[in-house]
């Protein structure tokens, strides 16, 4: 994920990006080293209470993040074809899942080295279904195919209220408690509650820092090309509780403040229009997305996906932590709640439009768009435009359609601006 925009660098990478790359490489290397020592390593869904394994010093890697990175390097198609062919998974299931289920089988052959980054095979998986139900089915398959245990925190779905009822929070909190006890047994390591508190505090520092950074892009023109934020998501997905993430975010903040002080930006064109990007990135097509947006002077200054990893809770309070994991993913909330949040963000970031990725792999996000774009249009008055794509399956995306949709959106935004300016 961190290397996505770096494939054709036009200028040296900022220091924060170099730090991200080093941190990600270290996480992978730590897992490979632990595996080589005969220690257990895990794979985890992206919004799992990672603080527990972080506290226990158990290496964990993240297939969603890994699938994004592989797709961005255009290395995913063969794996997806393998999942659909030899493994018989239907093409309608999530492309991250198809890619990863194939990879999980491929890496059983020690000679396999095509994917990059390459994951060591897991000894257990960590599952939280707050992003979607498909994660549960995907991890069931991993568990079944590799014959390894699942540690599961069922985060429910907030179907008609933003705030989960107390009995729901209790259910989730009890699962976290049970998971800690089970992981102690499984790993043979004692859980250190004091260290846990420190990891929780560090997670909160990092979440707050990242939120502060995102808010800097409310400035007009924006100091950051919104797509750049995709490059820093891995810090919160892989290393939310690490001090190295704090250092990266401090550096990133410095770089952005420098842009602000100098009146410069990382957006590679004049910012004519500001849009909210809705949905996951089209990782295999990121280059075309960015090039097209740049050509039309459209900066996707903010998107809900990069802010989905801020898990905000009170350190030392497990109920608060359970609540946070039940509500942090936008896919765990109702369409109305999400689109009200999006409307507020669009106003705050002074967006002229909303560009929605109808992601063939993500039913939840697509439903939010189909059901909720009217809410955004009514509340903000900005136009919304959809385009078809996928987070990993390159067959779904059409360059021509994307360009046409952006062009259409720009025409409306232009008319709106002209009308506004008289």
């Amino acid at each position: 994920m961190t290397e996505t925009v770096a494939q054709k660098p036009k200028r040296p990478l900022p220091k924060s990006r170099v730090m991200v790359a080093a941190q990600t490489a270290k996480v992978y290397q730590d897992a490979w080293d632990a595996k080589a020592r005969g220690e257990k390593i895990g794979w985890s869904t992206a919004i799992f209470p990672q603080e527990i394994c972080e506290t226990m010093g158990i290496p964990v890697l993240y297939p969603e993040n890994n699938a994004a990175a592989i797709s961005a390097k255009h290395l995913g198609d063969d794996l997806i074809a393998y999942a659909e062919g030899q493994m018989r998974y239907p093409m309608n299931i999530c492309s991250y899942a198809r890619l990863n289920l194939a990879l999980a089988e491929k890496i059983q052959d020690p000679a396999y080295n095509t994917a990059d980054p390459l994951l060591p095979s897991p000894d257990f998986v960590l599952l939280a279904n707050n992003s979607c139900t498909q994660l549960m089915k995907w991890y069931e398959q991993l568990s079944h195919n590799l014959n390894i245990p699942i540690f599961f925190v069922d985060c429910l779905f907030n179907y008609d209220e933003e705030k989960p009822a107390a009995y729901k929070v209790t259910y989730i909190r009890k699962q976290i408690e049970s998971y800690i006890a089970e992981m102690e047994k499984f790993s043979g390591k004692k859980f250190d509650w004091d260290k846990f508190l420190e990891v929780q505090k560090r997670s909160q520092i990092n979440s707050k820092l990242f939120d502060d950074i995102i808010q800097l892009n409310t400035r007009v023109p924006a100091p950051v090309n919104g797509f750049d934020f995709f490059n820093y998501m891995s810090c919160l997905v892989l290393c939310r509780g690490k001090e190295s993430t704090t250092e990266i975010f401090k550096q990133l903040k410095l770089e952005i403040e420098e842009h602000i002080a100098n009146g410069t930006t990382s957006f590679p064109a004049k910012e004519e229009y500001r849009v909210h990007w809705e949905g996951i990135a089209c990782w295999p097509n990121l280059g075309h997305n960015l090039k097209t947006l740049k050509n039309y002077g459209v900066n996707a200054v903010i998107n809900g996906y990069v802010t989905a990893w801020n898990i905000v809770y009170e350190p030392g309070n497990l109920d608060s932590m359970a609540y946070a994991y039940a509500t942090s993913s936008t896919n765990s909330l109702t369409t109305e709640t999400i689109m009200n949040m999006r409307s507020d963000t669009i106003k705050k970031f002074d967006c002229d439009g909303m560009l929605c990725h109808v992601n063939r792999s993500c039913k939840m996000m697509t439903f939010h768009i189909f059901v909720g774009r009217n809410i955004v249009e009514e509340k903000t008055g900005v136009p919304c435009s959809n385009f078809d794509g996928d987070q990993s399956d390159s067959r779904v995306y059409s360059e021509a359609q994307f360009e046409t949709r952006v062009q259409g959106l720009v025409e409306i935004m232009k008319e709106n601006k002209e009308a506004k300016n008289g």
Partner: protein
Amino acid sequence: MVNLDSLFNELDTIAVNPRIALDKYLVSGKKVIGCFPIYTPEELVHAAGMIPMGLWGGQTTPSVAGQYAPIFTCSLLRSCLEFGMLGKYQGISAALMPMLCDTYRGVSGAWRVGVKDIPLIAFIHPQNRKLAASREFLAAEYGAVKTKLEAIAGHVISDAAIKNSIGVYNAHQAAIREFCEVANDHLDVVTPKIRHTVMKSSHFMEKGAHTAIVSQIIDKLKQLPIHQWKGKKVILTGITGEPDDLLDLFAENKIAVVGDDLAQESRQFRTDIPKCGGPLESLAQQWLDRTACSTVHEVNSSRGKLIVDLARKYGAQGIAICLMKFCDVEEYEYPMLVKAAEDAGIPSLSLEIDQSTMNNEQSRTKIQSFAEMI
């Protein structure tokens, strides 16, 4: 005198056109609660003196649902949304919807926007079922559903009433299971379509009334001489084995259905409601006892074993995997099911189930070939 044909016809009329049953209940002054599949606690509706009515969509080419539901929405829920938006469920007081998959999560929002005249009562089953906390949670969740149903019914739903309804539902399940057993001795009479009709119709009738009819069917079947079926036999697995035309293709090819793991059929009836604390805890425990289902989290799913065991028990030569189009939970399990059948040396057949088309030609060819193969 009532004969088998008239009993089958009575159920067929309802299964083919549930609106007839709905109107009958509404005219009689009953309140009706729509129940989305599957594992919705109908017993609470029944205990409130209202009629739980299954919402299983139907064959239709959606014309309005696409406004809120993308093309890759599972065809069953897309049909339900279509019917709701077109007013075909008019008269239903509310709809109970379990958040069993991503499509449900999405359709819950679509329903609220698109079907404003039928309030939604959403609820969720706990999936981490090995902890005691999951039963406590689900009992509380069912309690919240009960409160909403009480507001519609206009009265409190007593524990005694729920216990009584649990008895009605357990008796119904037992009757359906017995019917499936007895049916296998009379495969000349109980065609795949009739077998399906008997079970499907139960979703649109008060369960006590349905049990009475099924019991009569069982009695009359038992009076017939046992038939030695000379054709082939299969097991069906999936969400539904519809439409009727698809089932007729099995009959045309001299294939009988001798067992199933369909969510619309036997999955509904194979797990009794146990006695477990209060009635809400009993209903919750039934969910915890369920296995071998794509909507239920289970480490090392027992579904492959279940369909193989069913095939062996009933002498089926093949397993037909009825794969609901765009049903992701089923699609994830597809390779596992094929492999389980292969490992057992039982041929399997994949059929696409799609409520948005009446065209079964692809299935016709597949079933014909399968009949020759098994």
